[in-house]
């Protein structure tokens, strides 16, 4: 009986510990959901990180071609060395996880390419 209990204990412990031992490769996280909170933010709003939710993102293949679909422009630019690209100073983050929409959709995506979050 004592031996059986010991075996059960070891098996249980094994099941608990084996999981991280050969562990995960690609789990997604949201910086907004992260519990890695700002120490400054815990005490003061000053200096807290400002996050902006991104709701639609469309690949840009050249400066000034806002919203143009991929492949709708010429091929010439791809032959040349890339020039530096502007980047917004603010930090964009993914929105909340998807859920069953309410009566009115928050946003209508025309294609999967422009959607954020799980497809």
């Amino acid at each position: 009986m004592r031996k059986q209990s010991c075996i059960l204990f070891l098996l249980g412990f094994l099941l608990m510990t084996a999981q991280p031992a050969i562990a995960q490769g690609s789990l997604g996280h949201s910086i907004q959901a992260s519990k890695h909170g700002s120490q400054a933010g815990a005490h003061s709003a000053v200096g807290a990180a400002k996050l902006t939710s991104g709701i639609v993102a469309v690949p840009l293949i050249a400066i000034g071609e806002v919203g143009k679909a991929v492949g709708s422009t010429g091929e010439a630019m791809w032959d040349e060395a890339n020039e530096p690209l502007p980047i917004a100073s603010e930090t964009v983050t993914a929105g909340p996880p998807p859920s069953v929409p309410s009566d009115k959709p928050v946003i209508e995506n025309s294609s999967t390419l422009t959607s954020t979050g799980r497809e």
Partner: protein
Amino acid sequence: MRILQLVACILWLSLSSPVFAGNMSTSDDSPVNFTQEEIISFAKKVEKSIAGKGARVAIVSRVGRSPEELPSGINYTHMAFWVYSNIQTADGRNIRGYQIYNLYQRSEELDVSDLVNDFPADFFAGVFELEAGIVIPKPKVQKAILDVIASGTYKKLHNPKYSVVASPFNNQYQNCTEYTLDVLMSALYRTDDMDQLKANAAEYFTPQTIHLSPLKTLFGPIFVEDFTTRDHNDAIETATFTTIKNFMQKYDLTLEDYSVKL
């Protein structure tokens, strides 16, 4: 008594075995490595670095676990395509930045994956180290990758059956690195024929061999949801950021590769 010895042996082996990858550091009982500000600052640093080189498409990897816990030859634990995009914010503004096209495991169902888009700060949330491995493909390769991402091929290439050590030479299981390779090969060969892509990979791609003891190989699939060797014949071989980087270097597909650290 023999059973007890066997269980103790397995326990010891599992505790001392290397991990493959991952971001378990965001689990409830994990240590906090970085503040939100540090993650956001680093993500912006990487974003600006890539943009500074004019990349419309880059392949970026992260370090999700301590390198000491990773098998030999594996330095990064997740990789994805970063695509320079016009981002519409919740308040209606348009800003420039990178959107990331990931293959992520489901947190509640680790042997299943989804294609998920997020942004740089999300990408680095929960990492073990603030370090990024970066490959910037040549412009024409970027264009070809973007053509795949923008087409139905991107979804067609996804296999939701996840294994952390998926073989890059068949489509029984897939992980983020194999998916990256599949998208890259599809871009290079302009085909979505998986059999053709795998034949090309077998001919030209050199994978990373994972060395595990026979017991770990035997018991791993029993105890670990996202680990299986069913798609391997003898050795366990998988795609990694480094092997994909080497492949791209070998065939002159790369404009530049480098790493960024905090």
